[in-house]
């Protein structure tokens, strides 16, 4: 579905730069990009919906060079979920969910029905929440709305930029469950960025590990754990395992 060919991006400050990277993302995959801050993982995401343009290399999307997609149309056809959530504070939950269909000028009644349906699918009761304002919802509830908004595009591709990073552990767990459930039912292609290795392991079909802009390894969680390609990947997995071991010893 998406092919990156030796794509790179640099900034005046080195932070979040990306060294030449090639990557193939097949349709229906849940790909997790794992890295700490400054690793270039958000840059990778923003290159895909043309919020950023690469310095070198090129990207193909649905068999066509990305450059030939109109940026506005492209973004309306890709779901995007942020850590900052970014709900529009002056619109109701239903209107927030239907943001992109409304921008496209879809029939208001259909927008409304879609919103109801999507709120249900992220486990928010529309009869309770549809007419509320974002400020009246908890952080976890707001991010469910964020996910519903991304789904409302009807897109086959969802980009998720550390969407659950600011949530507490229990809420994060619930939302991960929701996401896995959606992925199984809807077969969307999802590129999911996180710095949380446990989240990556739980969600990913494949994991891409980035460190300081350099690609470390691409593979399933098992491949990464059993055959780490770099010292960074090895340490990445060994630390949580050591912590678990210590816990076991104590108890």
């Amino acid at each position: 579905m998406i092919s990156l060919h030796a794509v790179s991006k640099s900034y005046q400050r080195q932070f979040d730069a990306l060294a030449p990277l090639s990557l193939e993302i097949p349709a229906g995959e849940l790909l997790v990009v794992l890295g700490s801050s400054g690793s270039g993982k958000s840059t990778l995401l923003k290159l895909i919906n043309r919020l950023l343009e690469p310095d070198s290399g090129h990207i193909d999307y649905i068999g066509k060079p990305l450059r030939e997609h109109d940026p506005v149309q492209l973004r309306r056809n890709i779901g995007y979920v942020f850590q900052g959530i970014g709900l529009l504070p002056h619109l109701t939950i239903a209107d927030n969910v239907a943001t992109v269909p409304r921008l496209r000028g879809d029939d208001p009644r259909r927008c409304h029905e879609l919103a109801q349906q999507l709120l249900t699918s992220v486990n928010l009761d529309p009869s309770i929440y549809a007419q509320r304002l974002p400020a009246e919802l908890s952080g976890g509830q707001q991010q469910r709305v964020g996910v519903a908004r991304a789904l409302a595009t009807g897109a086959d591709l969802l980009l998720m930029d550390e969407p659950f990073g600011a949530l507490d552990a229990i809420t994060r767990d619930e939302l991960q469950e929701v996401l896995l459930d959606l992925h199984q039912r809807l077969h969307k292609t999802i590129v999911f960025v996180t710095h949380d290795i446990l989240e990556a392991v739980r969600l990913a079909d494949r994991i891409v590990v980035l460190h300081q802009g350099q690609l470390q390894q691409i593979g399933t969680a098992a491949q990464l754990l059993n055959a780490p390609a770099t010292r960074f990947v090895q340490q990445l997995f060994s630390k949580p395992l050591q912590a678990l071991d210590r816990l076991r010893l104590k108890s």
Partner: protein
Amino acid sequence: MSAWSTLLHERGPELLQKLLEHLLLTGIATTIAMVIGLAAGIALTRNKAIQAPVMAAVNALQTIPSLAMLAFLLPLFGIGMLPALIALTLYALLPIMRNTLTGIQGLPEAVLEACAALGFTDQQRLWQVELPLALPTIMAGIRTATVISVGVATLAAFIGAGGLGDFIVRGLAVNNSKLVLLGAIPAAALALLLDRLLQGLELALRHGRHARRRSIGKTLTAATLTLLLVLSLSAALLWRSQDTVSIRVASKNFTEQYILAELLAQMLEMHTDLRVERKLNFGSINIVHNALLNDAVDVYPEYTGTAWRVILQRSNTLSAEQTLEQVRAAYQQRFDLRWLQPFGFNNSYAILVTEDLARRHDLHSISDLAALAPTLTMGFAAEFYVRSDGYPALRNAYALNFSDTAEMDLGLLYQALHEGSIDVAAGNSTDGRIPALHLRVLDDDRNFFPPYYAAPVLRGEVLRAHPEIADVLNRLGGVIDTAAMQAMNRAVDQDQQSAYAVAFDFLQQRGLLQPPDAQ
């Protein structure tokens, strides 16, 4: 309390007119500032490079004192509504522009990032996200601008733009606090009312948005239409009151001028079919002279000596008859302005000392002051300092070297002299406070001051269209001597009567309210 009800009864219709004028000035200026300020503020959010210089320029405009701004616009745009509107608009611009800019730029980064990633076009982001979210800040700017406009509009009176400031300026000039309050209280009430109204509108806008998404456009349109309706209504009311042919009687901004203008106005009201409009409070002879030349006013009382020195720029001193004759000829030839019959009195500058000081030092003429001057302080109004027949020329003519000088309001001069905070004052010989406060007028033994006989000055065009005006106003010729003028001035300055009532009483006593053949 009864004084208030008399005042309101007397001034009621005028109050309504001034209020409408004020509303119109404020409304038009704020509306223009809103359109420009919003557009410019939005443009600045899209063009960060010019933000700082543009905002610095607009900020600088705001620091110009309002009176200085009006004075600056005067030579460019003349007097009246236009320069006042320009000044008001410039003042209202800053709060609207600044609040639009900060309102939009202060939006959370997450929201803007969301807009970009969700595929908002620039226009959609502006109308659906930025403006609705910045609305409370923008409305606060509009409210500030409106309140500032109502306040600054009171100063428009100085350049003949009307409004509630007319009462304030007039009240200050005749030292009548009730008259000042008659302008100030409605102005304050108007500011509060408009502020509340806009606040209500803002709440309606916000609630409207919750109920129906698209209603922001509708509500904005409704608000604009309401504003236009109010404006056109007040404009229509003002215009309607001006559709008959009217004579615009003007005056400068001191007591005697108000009384003389009232005499002219009431004579015209009584004896002609013309509507009379009073345009009082002009700041100086130059301003009112310009107003006559620009067809902004028709008639006002002026003094021969002032015209001789200031308008005709003559430095020599002639007899009363010669001065009038030459001023009359020059005015007719150069300006097509006619001097009618003088009222009869000579309001010269009077160099005043207290009777007490005069007796102690045997002072009779201005020459007698020369030796004593280095121990004395002289006070005068600001205008006297800059006039060609004012302080610098007087000092040279009589070799007066005062130890100090003080500029103060003309109305305060007499009291200051009486209380001893100044020793010598340049007042007006017809001021009622000269006899009342036991002040002595020193003789102008070197004929420094020209004769200042007061007479109506009328536009030639008006005279040709309505020849009867000359007959009516000439009935005032020679009927007011110095004592009569002093008495009328005192009635206003000391006894707090209105210029209207004092003029009316005078006309009644002299039988001038009756037709000429009944006399």
